């Protein structure tokens, strides 16, 4: 009977700690949100499942490999251990995802109306105000965030998952689980979070503003743009170069038209494979001691605040620009500056159609939408640079 006793003692039930059980429920909730509610399933299905796997007591999914003194492996590590340390700690997975996103991005609307870059800049205010909020919570003794942690929390407001994961894995890896979950959850909640803010900050007349049709953009412009952006980043903001460099590389493969087979694989097999393992790896950081604490509540709260401020800043920026320009912008497209491509652009379109059923804002909103990706990557670069020096 010793064997049954040993099997039973090593069973999940006997080893399970309360925290692990709760985290497995958290994983199931994430899966429910992803599958039942359609919240960013491409990431939340792997993250939710990874959360469950990482919290199975005794399964060793994030166990480190053990080597003897001669360097021979005595017991292999767990799958999530290799995934996390190979792909996330090194920053490789977010960068490859960014390459794939670049290969999927159409900069046409942005090139037709480059001013919308400013909307993508404005929406990053949410990031930095939230950093201030996080340190303020520390100041008032409510929660205790370091400046590195505060910076990582702020980046949730960038509404860009891989950027958030890239920054957090560099500045505050312990918060990776909570921040990634918050980032993707709020991206999924864009259709619920944004419209009230957009309506509150605009008049009916503003929401009815019709925008000129976008000019056609030549193939040459599309090819030269990622290179221009790359050179500018190289000259001015090298800390943003990893993210934006890979983004521009993906986009150049797409637009150059001479490496279609590479571009196709980047947009399909490669980004899919990396997405699966990125999600699983993030899930491996969803342990009870790192997730079940007041800080996570603070992160979720601050993340929501960051999103709201970002949305509001984008809308207000559009109104400010209308003051100084003859060519009027519908301020609703300012909300798309948070990125969350293409959801935020669709939301702008939908709210616009409510005000005027003939007013199609989708393509106009794609400009600030992709500008928001650039904006938050720039913000990430600045953040990493400044915080590393603090």
């Amino acid at each position, binding site marked *: 009977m010793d064997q049954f006793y040993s099997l039973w003692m090593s069973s999940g039930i006997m080893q399970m700690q309360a925290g692990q059980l709760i985290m497995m429920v958290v994983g199931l909730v994430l899966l429910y949100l992803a599958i039942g509610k359609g919240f960013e399933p491409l990431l939340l299905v792997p993250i939710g499942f990874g959360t469950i796997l990482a919290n199975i007591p005794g399964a060793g999914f994030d166990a480190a490999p053990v080597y003897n003194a001669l360097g021979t492996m005595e017991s292999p590590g767990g799958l999530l251990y290799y995934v996390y340390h190979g792909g996330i700690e090194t920053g490789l997975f977010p960068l490859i995802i960014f390459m794939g996103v670049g290969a999927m991005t159409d900069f046409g609307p942005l*090139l037709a109306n480059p001013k919308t870059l400013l909307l993508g800049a404005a929406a990053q205010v949410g990031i930095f105000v939230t950093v201030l909020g996080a340190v303020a919570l520390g100041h008032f003794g409510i929660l205790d965030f370091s400046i590195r942690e505060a910076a990582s929390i702020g980046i949730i407001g960038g509404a860009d998952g891989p950027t958030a994961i890239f920054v957090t894995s560099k500045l505050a890896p312990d918060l990776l689980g909570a921040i990634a979950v918050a980032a993707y959850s709020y991206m999924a909640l864009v259709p619920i979070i944004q419209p009230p803010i957009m309506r509150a900050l605009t008049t009916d007349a503003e929401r009815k503003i019709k925008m000129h049709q976008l000019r056609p953009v030549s193939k040459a412009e599309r090819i030269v743009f990622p290179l221009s952006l790359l050179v500018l980043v190289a000259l001015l903001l090298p800390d943003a170069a990893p993210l934006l460099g890979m983004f521009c590389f993906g986009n150049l493969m797409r637009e150059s038209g001479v490496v279609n087979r590479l571009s196709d694989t980047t947009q399909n097999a490669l980004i899919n494979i990396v997405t699966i393992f990125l999600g699983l790896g993030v899930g491996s950081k969803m342990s009870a001691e790192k997730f079940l604490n007041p800080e996570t509540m603070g992160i979720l709260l601050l993340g929501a605040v960051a999103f709201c401020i970002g949305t509001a800043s984008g809308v207000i920026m559009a109104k400010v620009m209308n003051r100084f320009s003859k060519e009027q912008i519908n301020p609703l497209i300012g909300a798309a500056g948070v990125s969350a491509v293409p959801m935020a652009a669709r939301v702008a379109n939908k709210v616009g159609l409510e005000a005027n059923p003939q007013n199609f804002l989708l393509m106009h909103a794609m400009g600030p939408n992709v500008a928001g990706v650039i904006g938050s990557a720039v913000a990430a670069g600045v953040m990493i640079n400044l915080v590393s020096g603090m």
Partner: protein
Amino acid sequence: MDATLIDQGIDLLLYGMGTVFAFLTLLVAVTSLMSVIVNKLVVEVAPIAPVAIAPQSSVDPRIVKVIQAAIDQHRAS
């Protein structure tokens, strides 16, 4: 130390947003300029393109030449 943390937050806000705005404003300028230059160059290069595409017209260029010669002869006569 706490005060320093808030100072750091304020610094991040000011310098961070400053840099983001500065960079993207510059990018607006660079992009606009780039579009102008690139499209100008493309227009200058463009006249070559239609010619290059011409042989794709359904009429054989040699036949066009023959017809043209016939027309010229007719006009000359």
